[in-house]
């Protein structure tokens, strides 16, 4: 057991995987010599060699497409996109090839690979550096989509993703890389993909979120509990497959839900969660299903981020409205 940040926990997961499985390799821009722009791959090239931790040219489609070929050829590549906004040039490879080869070949060829994508805002970054496109990947059949929010989950989910027989898009909340620390077991352990994490249990209202927004939701839950509201908080962790049982059980219990994410609202993944609830839990609902999300706009630059990102106050307000009705 060590106390680690998410960045270090991910680094450990990659280190353990490279150690244990000779087929595992990392590819990406600046992942080797500098250890990645977020230092998530720090030291791994020294330890495992430039043949297994590979610095690539600036060519996302090539990185994912070549990693796909490596995976079909029996390797276990972990490809890094430097930021989610730079994963778009690789989107064709992901949706037309990575996610489909198993189906196209009826299991004859498979692509057991992980695409690591730092995502989300809140660090005052330049344009394209604060994207949350998880819904786009979640809408792509054949992919699993994972978003850890704690160091323990980060390491365990990444190892599960590397071990998964199918491609996994692994979204890493930039804002949490170094802001949260916790004890993380040594060596190999896995957090099963497809199981939500109930962060706190409550009776009056359910707050559903994932990734960096867990921080704001935690803050909101604490504020609401100070007012005597009993709050249940669900961190989905995995968007595909989605842990619908946990969601349904919670909504049936509380009858009130607020979904929180930082991606734009329209057709965001929150819509899927709300639709699911409207389909499966209608009779348990005592109030409209509210979504507290980013606006349908470009993620703003540093000076205006606060106007965009869901805040504790916005979540609390939506929860109150939901409780009052």
């Amino acid at each position, binding site marked *: 057991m060590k106390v680690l940040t998410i960045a270090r926990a991910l680094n450990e997961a990659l280190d353990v995987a490279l150690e244990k499985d000779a087929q595992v*390799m990392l590819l990406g821009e600046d992942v080797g010599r500098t250890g990645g722009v977020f230092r998530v791959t720090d030291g791994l090239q020294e330890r495992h060699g430039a*043949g297994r931790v*590979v610095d*690539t*040219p600036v*060519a996302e*489609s*090539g990185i994912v*497409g*070549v*990693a*796909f*070929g*490596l*995976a*079909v*050829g*029996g*390797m276990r*590549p972990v490809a890094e996109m430097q930021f989610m906004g730079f994963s778009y*040039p690789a989107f*064709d*490879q992901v949706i*037309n*090839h990575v996610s489909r080869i*198993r*189906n*196209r*070949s*009826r*299991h*004859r*060829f*498979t692509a057991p690979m992980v695409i690591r994508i730092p995502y989300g805002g809140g660090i005052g970054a330049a344009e394209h550096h604060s994207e949350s496109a998880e819904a786009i990947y979640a809408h792509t*059949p*054949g992919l*699993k989509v994972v978003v850890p929010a704690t160091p323990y989950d980060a390491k365990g989910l990444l190892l599960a993703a590397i071990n998964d*027989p*199918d491609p996994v898009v692994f979204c890493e909340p930039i804002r949490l890389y170094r802001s949260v620390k916790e004890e993380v077991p040594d060596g190999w352990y896995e957090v099963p993909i*497809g199981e939500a994490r109930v962060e706190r249990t409550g009776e009056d209202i359910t707050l559903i979120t994932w990734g960096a927004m867990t921080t704001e939701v935690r803050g909101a839950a604490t504020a609401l509990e100070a007012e005597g509201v009993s709050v249940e908080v669900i961190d989905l962790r995995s968007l*595909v*497959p*989605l842990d*619908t049982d946990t969601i349904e059980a919670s909504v049936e219990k509380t009858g009130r839900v607020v979904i929180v994410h930082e991606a734009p609202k329209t057709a965001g993944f929150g819509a899927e969660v709300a639709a699911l609830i409207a389909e499966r839990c209608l009779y348990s609902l005592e109030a409209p299903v509210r979504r507290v999300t980013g606006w349908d706009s470009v993620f703003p630059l540093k000076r205006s981020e606060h106007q965009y990102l869901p805040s504790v106050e916005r979540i609390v307000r939506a929860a109150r409205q939901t409780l009052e009705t």
Partner: protein
Amino acid sequence: MRQRLTPSGGVEGDPPIDIQLTRRLYRAMVFARTYDRKGTALQKQGRLATYAPFEGQEAAQIGAAAGLQPNDWVVATYRDAALMWAQGYPWELLFAGRTGDERGGSPPEHVPVMPPSITVGGHMVHAVGLAWAEKLNGTGRIALTSFGDGATSEGDFHEAMNFAAVYDIGCIFFCQNNGYAISLPREMQTRSTSIAEKAIAYGMPGVQVDGNDLFAVYEAVHDAAERARAGGGPTLIEAVTYRIGPHTTSDDPKRYRSDDEVSEWKRRDPLERVRIYLSERGAWDEEWQATIEAEAAAEIDRAIELAENMPPLGPGEILDAMFETLPPHLERQRAELLENLT
């Protein structure tokens, strides 16, 4: 443009392969043409979905495969049935794919050929990855990826070529320049004087060969393969050829090319020159021609029968290959699907 076997059957220098192999490859080209014409015919009868004929490109495809080892990877396109078959992909699965059956994309375990790429340009990087994996595992296997002139306009061609060169990957980039990207002639696609010369941009050797010349194609691929196997890295080969038929059975080539151009190219038929070459050496006669045509017809008919007698995917099976094991939401959708099909 390198040429070893002229349209009139004359050879430049020593033939790169012996008479026996030449006969085998000629026979393979006859099989390929039989398959191809059958494909168009079946589509017209509504027995196949859209079909993309490759008549005129047989020497390029059969010659390329002949230059490889049997376990080398082939990553090719919707127009490369002959190449894929020559590397082990069964005719019946090629037909099955065209009938609209996913199982057409599932070759037997030992066949090192990916399902045909339908997207243009996206598959070359896959070949680079495959060849890289073989290199890392020290198997001595390499990869050949086949694509058209049009595919060289895609960004992924650029990224594939660059990755292969940067990491010294044993990947052969085999371009069948058949003159058109659907309706767009080669000259309107790019201003480089040849496609082979694009290799310079990646510090990679590039060669242009007569794609209707079995010997020249075989030799170019064989040499590139041996270099790649020896760790010499990738090669770009431009095989200059021509698509005698339409882009696909739903295309009308009269809209963009002249009949004269087509008949001009028919005079450069890739089979005919090999036939002349063989007959001048007493290695071809009408009787043998009749025999191999009959064998081809029989084998292709058998393949069609197999493909058409394949029962369609059963209810729900369309979901079964999305993941190794179906996640709960797909289990639920599968149940809903069954409920609705009954």
